[in-house]
């Protein structure tokens, strides 16, 4: 007997459970030869299972199934539900989710590697961010990713995203770039260019305090007080920067920043980044004119800010725009999309009109109903007699719960999920009638999962494995027909074969040769 693990998607498992058999991708099947309790120590099995896992959202998107094959020669990529011995969720949250949503008979084990999700998701978050950078550079037609990586290394990004995943706010001795990228405004700074300068002061104070600080601390700094004097004047970024450079009291602030980040203009990068982050907070869109203007005005500072925006938005928030800009081969043309937008607009208008009509009709119905109720019981009774859905179990006018009758039992078919007859025999519940009738040789009972392979060909494993071959044997047009003799042997006489090209020809042929025996030739 051989033991296997396979990683399958939740949706695939639901189909597997529903239909009883499943074709696995053989790359995702891993054979193992140790007790299950030792699996957590087997890094080689972990690596083999998760090596090529696709990106996913929730930990319950995937699960690991453990199945056995009684015969070593059996193809492990064809599995029946009776061969499955364990279902391992990827983490305890997934276990909780499966237990609340799967058929309640299904037993969910504890995860084998409880930290797997965290490791995989962090890796995926990093991959998505770096893909986001490539997407942004592609869409904005920028160059110089490598130079940006020299400034904000991949290691820094990876570490920062690990903290994002773990919900750890920046603190301690981390790069100023990290304090910038992770910064969130929770203060009431003005929603204009000046506000971004106040944000930058806040970021610098965070960096120097080695933790995120409250706004009243920021507001007590001299540089903030200088900026506060510009409030309500509607200054643009370059004007504020100019004013700061002119102001002797602000020079300490500018010198300090230059000492932290000597090679680039941190303020310009930060203003660009913070502005873009606000601009794209709901949806990322591409405005060629705006981006060209930014590139021309801010040059390298804009490129670095775009690198950071790519990291922040990731592939998830940028792919729609990228696909449109390529465009994807599977995308409809702009003309087709314009027609769809127009059609949807018409549908919206139609829906609005229709809802107004429904409302008027309902108003009329309400008036009629009120009149009917005033009119007395008899008329009302007549109405309910015509109800196509039967009468309510609720007796109007009495109030309270006890009068709700058993109408639901008649209105709805019994839920088959609770019908014991539908339980697959491998579930180990020990019902008498679960013993497969077609396999009377089975002696050990259904409660022993390890031996349930012996329940035999419950799902027609051989047929499943041969299904591919079978499909090739199926007939299709054009069809060659063979004449058979009365003794049942293929005729060797002249004209003992014929070809028909479609169903009609086939039917006509059989009608015109009704006294003879013709069968499709395989």
């Amino acid at each position, binding site marked *: 007997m051989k033991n296997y693990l396979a990683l399958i998607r939740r949706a695939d498992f639901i189909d597997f459970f529903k239909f009883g058999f499943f074709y696995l991708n053989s790359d995702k099947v891993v054979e193992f030869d140790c007790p299950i309790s030792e699996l957590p120590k087997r890094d080689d099995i972990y690596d083999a299972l998760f090596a090529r896992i696709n990106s996913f959202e929730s930990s319950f998107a995937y699960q690991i199934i453990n199945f056995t094959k009684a015969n070593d020669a059996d193809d492990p990529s064809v599995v029946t539900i009776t061969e499955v011995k364990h279902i391992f969720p990827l983490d305890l949250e997934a276990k909780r989710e499966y237990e609340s949503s799967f058929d309640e008979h299904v037993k969910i084990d504890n995860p084998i590697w409880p930290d797997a999700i965290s490791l995989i998701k962090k890796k995926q978050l990093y991959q998505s961010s770096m893909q986001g950078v490539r997407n942004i550079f592609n869409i904005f037609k920028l160059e110089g990713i490598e130079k940006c990586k020299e400034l904000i290394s991949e290691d820094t990004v990876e570490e920062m995203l690990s903290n994002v995943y773990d919900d750890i706010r920046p603190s301690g001795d981390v790069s100023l770039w990290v304090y910038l990228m992770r910064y969130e405004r929770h203060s009431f700074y003005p929603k204009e260019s000046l506000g971004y300068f106040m944000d930058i002061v806040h970021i610098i104070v965070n960096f120097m305090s080695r933790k995120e600080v409250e706004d009243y601390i920021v507001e007590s700094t001299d540089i903030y007080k200088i900026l506060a004097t510009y409030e309500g004047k509607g200054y643009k970024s370059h004007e504020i920067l100019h004013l700061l450079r002119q102001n002797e009291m602000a020079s300490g602030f500018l010198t300090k920043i230059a000492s932290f980040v000597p090679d680039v203009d941190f303020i310009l990068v930060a203003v660009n980044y913070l502005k873009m982050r606000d601009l794209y907070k709901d949806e990322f869109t591409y405005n060629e004119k705006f981006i060209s203007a930014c590139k021309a005005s801010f040059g390298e500072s804009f490129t670095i800010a775009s690198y950071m925006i790519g990291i922040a938005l990731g592939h998830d928030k940028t792919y729609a725009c990228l696909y449109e800009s390529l465009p994807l081969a599977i995308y409809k043309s702009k003309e087709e999309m314009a027609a769809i937008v127009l059609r949807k607009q018409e549908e919206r208008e139609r829906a609005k009109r229709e809802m107004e009509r429904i409302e008027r009709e309902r108003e009329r119905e309400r008036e009629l109903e009120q009149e009917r109720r005033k009119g007395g019981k008899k008329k009302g009774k007549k109405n309910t007699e015509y109800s196509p859905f039967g009468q309510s179990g609720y007796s109007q006018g009495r109030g309270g719960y006890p009068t709700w009758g058993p109408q639901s039992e008649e209105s709805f*078919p019994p839920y088959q999920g609770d019908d014991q007859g539908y339980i697959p025999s491998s579930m180990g519940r020990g019902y008498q009638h679960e013993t497969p009738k077609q396999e009377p040789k089975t002696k050990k009972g259904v409660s022993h999962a390890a031996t349930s392979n012996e329940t035999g060909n419950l799902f027609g494993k051989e047929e499943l494995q041969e299904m591919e071959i079978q499909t090739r044997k199926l007939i299709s047009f054009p069809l060659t027909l063979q004449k058979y003799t009365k003794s049942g042997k293929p005729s060797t006489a002249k004209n003992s074969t014929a070809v028909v090209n479609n169903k009609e020809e086939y039917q006509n042929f059989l009608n015109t040769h009704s006294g003879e025996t013709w069968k499709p030739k395989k």
Partner: protein
Amino acid sequence: MAWLVPENMLDDQQRDFVENVDINQRNVWIKGFPGSGKSVLLAYTMKRIKRKEPNAKVAVVVFTHSLIAMFKAAFAEMGVSANIMTYYEFMDGSSNYDYVLSDEVQDMTGRVLATMNSRAKHVIVAGDENQSIYESDPKYREATVSPSQITSLLNCRDFELGIIHRLSSSIIAAVEKFMPNMNIFTARRDMTKRTTQIRLCSANSAEQEAKYIMKEAQRAVNIGETAAILIPSQQKILDFFQMALTALGKSQWPVQLNRWGKVDYNKLNSYLRTNGIKLQYVGNGYGSFTEDGGKICVMTYHSSKGLDFDNVFLPGLSQSLYINSSERLSRTLFMVAMTRSRNNLYLTHSGSRSAYLSNFAGDCSRINVSDVLSGQTTTSGGGNIFGI
């Protein structure tokens, strides 16, 4: 809000519903926390019905007129017409339907659900048992349904959504600590998800709380953000208004009653307007969100349900905090109030703080209101500590 998001935008649980739940086999109750996508799935259900059975007779039954407006706009956006009504309107009618779709089912009465079941072939409801904030229906004077009654009256299967998209990770963490038995699953984490800053603010008196709240809330509305001050009861609301007026150096409002002997909040709102104060009472038909020049909204926990604001202030969270005689309802209402905030949540108290804050107080940033108001927050060395 785009209700019919493309399938690639659905989370794993929502996708599971779309792929595997057969609404024609059995009635369905879509459960889930606010922001978990219950309404999105109702919209998907509507679209599915209209695609498969264009002539099906469908009623959408909701709790309030504001929900009608919301659903109407959403369905029109989807290009789908629907017969949308309040449950009172539904109960006044006698039509039968192929499908009834209903939201906020936890606040309806058993009779309404039983009627839905008898007048429709298929019933698909959405609602969250943890958000039930009414014990009885004000018009029918009947008890609202319990979770087990919903299941038995509709003979339905549950479908639970646990991934919350609307709330930030910090609010979810606080809710999980406040109500540990809730089945919440981790939403996607990435750099585009903001946190909500939860500030635990300790004051010397209720008056000081009011002064601090007004200061911060005014700063918020002055830059165009929304701000709401949520208070458990009407009486406490009136107390707060008077303290806020005092804090702003204005005379207290001479309370005026309406013809039913209740506080006339229209008069209060016009008093505030006359005095140039950007503050209003909202609820029970008073006040409006659409008025020009953003105003700070003061409302009860009850009235805030279904709404959200950039900044939320919950004053009076002292040891003597009283919300409702039912502990279950008190906790639910408190949870509703604290989950209204997008950007900043201020929990203020004077004296010892309420036990409701104990479980997550450690995760909040601390503000000493007295220091902030007196300007004694500068760290030693004055304003130039960083040389900037």
